[in-house]
């Protein structure tokens, strides 16, 4: 326990949403115990598969076990801290969702609390991921290169292969040929999707199969078998915590809360999009009608099609229909939309008529940078690039060099300007240095290709699902219901200063005193 405590203290107080710590098969939305033990056994099975594939020697297994002990501490810590945070998150997100539903903005305290908890969640996820990835690297060094290579296609989402009788009849052969032709035809799309996935992984690093299975407490028994060693107490404890929870936070309750949070997040993200799209009643009616028409049995066919690797004809056709209902501006919003908890400015708060203070991030950054000494500037640029890489993906060495040159050139230009000149030019300069969002660019490319090959794209991704449609219907009802306007009694509440009292800004009204 001492070792555990000191490790816990030395690591961050991080926790994270179950999405990260639990193996994928634990990402269940229902929390009944039976399903959890099923998940556990599935997870153990995946661990077994992985260890078999690696064909670990006894020594390797022993080394991995000692790394797994450290991972176990992280898994326990993650569970405990996450469990403590969940009720707070649940409450905050619930309030946030309630306000999001009304589409009238957020009260400052609700918005701030949600932002704070969201931040804590992110910091936690990043820290724990970082530490687990470090352990994963350590374990990677224990493996031989051939063993590491054997993990390349050990997909995390891969399910145990079910034995099936191979059908070799003419129909299935024709089907296979069709699939091959289709795959050859849509190769550019698959490649673009792969690029997008790679970029996504770069921006959101995730634990690989080693961390997920080999070092996971649920894989410990198999590892112990190979190592022919005694099971360390910490691994048993960790497995126990992940299986049953702690006395304060039983696993059923934690899973229940996680499921509710997941549901809320999905709902909030949908509201953010719905609020940003400003669909009118007529559009909502059309879209939901199209969906209803295509749904039910056809839906099943579409899902089967997607699984078979054939084009999702139904979805694609539905998407084309929905596309017609949206206007140009709405298409643009969709093209820039990323699922989110806190809506970005373009969805929540577009620049308003007559609003002065709407300088972009880059304008503010330039204004600071142009006043810095060259040494400070170097740090400032490094920091900016680090931040960009985190949000937009790593640049290649050449890209980085070019970007630094562009930033330096623009800052030099800005620093030779007078304040007045800079004020007039900052928007243009900022536009010059704004980093392109490569995820959006690449997603746009994928969407264009999907369209070309008659496959579903962005609209399907974000809109064509039952939950989104239910929310859309709710919004339709809200719009149809109108707004009850109870007027504020103007005599109460804040009162504007007026010239009944003052002439000069800090003086009495002389016109009044004149009358007296």
């Amino acid at each position: 326990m001492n070792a555990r405590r000191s490790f816990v203290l030395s690591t961050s107080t991080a926790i994270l949403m179950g999405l990260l710590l639990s193996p994928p098969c634990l990402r269940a939305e229902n929390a009944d115990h039976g399903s959890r033990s099923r998940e556990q056994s599935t997870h153990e099975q995946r661990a077994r598969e992985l260890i078999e594939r690696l064909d670990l020697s006894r020594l390797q297994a022993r080394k991995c076990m000692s790394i797994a002990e450290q991972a176990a501490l992280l898994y326990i810590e993650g569970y405990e801290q996450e469990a403590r945070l969940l009720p707070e998150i649940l409450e905050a997100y619930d309030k946030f969702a309630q306000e999001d539903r009304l589409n009238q903005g957020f009260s400052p305290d609700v918005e701030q609390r949600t932002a704070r908890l969201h931040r804590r969640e992110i910091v936690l996820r990043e820290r724990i991921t970082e530490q687990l990835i470090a352990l994963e690297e350590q374990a990677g060094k224990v493996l031989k290169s051939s063993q590491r290579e054997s993990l390349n296609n050990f997909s995390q989402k891969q399910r145990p292969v079910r034995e099936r009788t191979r059908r070799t009849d003419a129909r299935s052969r024709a089907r296979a040929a069709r699939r091959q032709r289709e795959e050859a035809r849509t190769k550019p799309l698959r490649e673009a999707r792969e690029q997008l996935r790679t970029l996504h992984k770069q921006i959101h690093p995730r634990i690989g199969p080693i961390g997920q299975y080999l070092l996971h407490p649920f894989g410990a028994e198999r590892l112990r078998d190979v190592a022919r060693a005694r099971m360390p107490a910490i691994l048993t404890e960790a497995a126990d915590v992940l299986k049953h929870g702690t006395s304060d936070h039983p696993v059923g309750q934690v899973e229940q809360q996680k499921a509710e949070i997941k549901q809320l997040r999905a709902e909030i993200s949908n509201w953010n999009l719905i609020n940003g799209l400003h669909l009118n009643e007529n559009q909502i009616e059309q879209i939901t009608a199209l969906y209803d028409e295509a749904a039910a049995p056809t839906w099943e066919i579409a899902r089967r099609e997607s699984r078979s690797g054939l084009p999702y004809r139904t979805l694609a056709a539905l998407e084309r229909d929905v596309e017609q209902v949206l206007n140009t501006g709405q298409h643009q919003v969709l093209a820039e939309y990323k699922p989110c908890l806190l809506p970005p400015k373009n969805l929540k708060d577009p620049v308003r008529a007559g609003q002065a203070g709407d300088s972009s991030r880059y304008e503010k950054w330039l204004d600071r940078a142009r006043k810095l000494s060259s040494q400070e500037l170097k740090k400032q640029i490094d920091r900016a690039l680090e931040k960009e890489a985190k949000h937009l993906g790593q640049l290649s060495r050449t890209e980085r060099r070019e970007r630094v040159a562009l930033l330096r050139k623009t800052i030099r230009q800005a620093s030779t300007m007078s304040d007045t000149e800079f004020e007039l030019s900052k928007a243009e300069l900022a536009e010059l240095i704004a980093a392109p969002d490569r995820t959006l660019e690449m997603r746009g490319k994928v969407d264009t290709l999907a369209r070309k090959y008659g496959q579903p794209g962005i609209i399907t991704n974000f809109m064509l699902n039952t939950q989104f449609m239910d929310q859309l219907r709710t919004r339709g009802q809200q719009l149809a219901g109108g707004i009850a306007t109870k007027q504020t009694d103007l005599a109460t509440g804040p009162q504007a200063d007026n010239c009944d009292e003052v002439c000069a800004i800090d003086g009495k009204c002389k016109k009044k005193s004149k009358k007296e």
Partner: protein
Amino acid sequence: MIPPRLDRREFLGTLGQYAGAACLGCGLGMFAESAFGESHRFTREVDFYTQLPGKKIQCFVCPLHCVLEDGETCFCRTRTNVGGQLFTRAYNNPCVLRVDPIEKLPLNHFRPGTKTLTLGTGGCNVRCLYCQNWQQSQKMPDEIKTFKLSPREAITAARKKKVDTIAFGYTEPVAFLEYAKDIAILAKKARLKVVVATAAFVEPEPLFELSEYVDAFVVTLKGFNEEFYHRVLGIELAPVLTAIKTIKEQTNAWLELTNLIVPTYNDDPDEIRDMVTWVHDHLGDDVPMHFARFVPTYRLANLPRTPVQTLETARAIGYEAGLRYVYTSNIAPHEGTNTVCAACGTTVIERLGFKVLSNGLKRGVCPKCHKKLPGLWC
């Protein structure tokens, strides 16, 4: 003894006697330097005021008619009595200086898709509880960060930025009327267009004089009842209506109106109906009306945003009253930001917020029915 308030005729008579000429910098720089040590201060005398005994003055730029002792500054925070003469503090020192789409003023029937150099200074003669630029408007020009820019430099800047419109807005141009007018005069000589975005709480004379150099006005008609104007804005409605009528009837400038709908304060459909009916009856059906979404700010930060339904209802009321061009603002994307030909119903300009996505008009003419839409299109 302070003489009784002057009636209009007397007031106009006093102007020639007391007021400084509308020239650029009236040779008082020396005085300003020595007295206050800042070159941009007190270099320009106010055009509309009268001197009263005991070095007092009374300002006649806006309907407040402030009476000031020596050293005091008007309610607008920009005009100061310096030894019995009224000078503006808002000269050569804008705090807002931006190149923006013309749609941001908001103007939808005035050279769509073009850009404007927009200027604003500190100070305002209105006290809106929901001012979105209160950090600038509720301060004296000397209390905030400003940029040095003479009227001549403003013209050069517009040229350099390749814009052919100069606009006054963000804060209240009535508070920096002298600066705006001097820039406008030069702008006209330089063949630039001039736009004024204002709450129009201004006396007709100064407004009329300025309008000579103005191509378009955007007036914020903030509500349609005196109590709202008094308690929430600190001013009166009647002079605003007079000013709007003056613009429409006595000037050649293009006019658009905007109304920011504050939930539970000025969103009563009956009041909105009264307002648009007044617009229709007094200004005609061609004046574009914008209904803008409120976002919680300043002293009304605890209110929610305006529901989209409210804006849509207001828009519908506008059309019902017979207005032909009614818009929604501050929500995007929304069909209410598009321009639809009133004659044939074709969407002729498609916008995303302030960005023009497509413009089918040819010199203001609808491509379908070939009727000209009201406005200034090139």
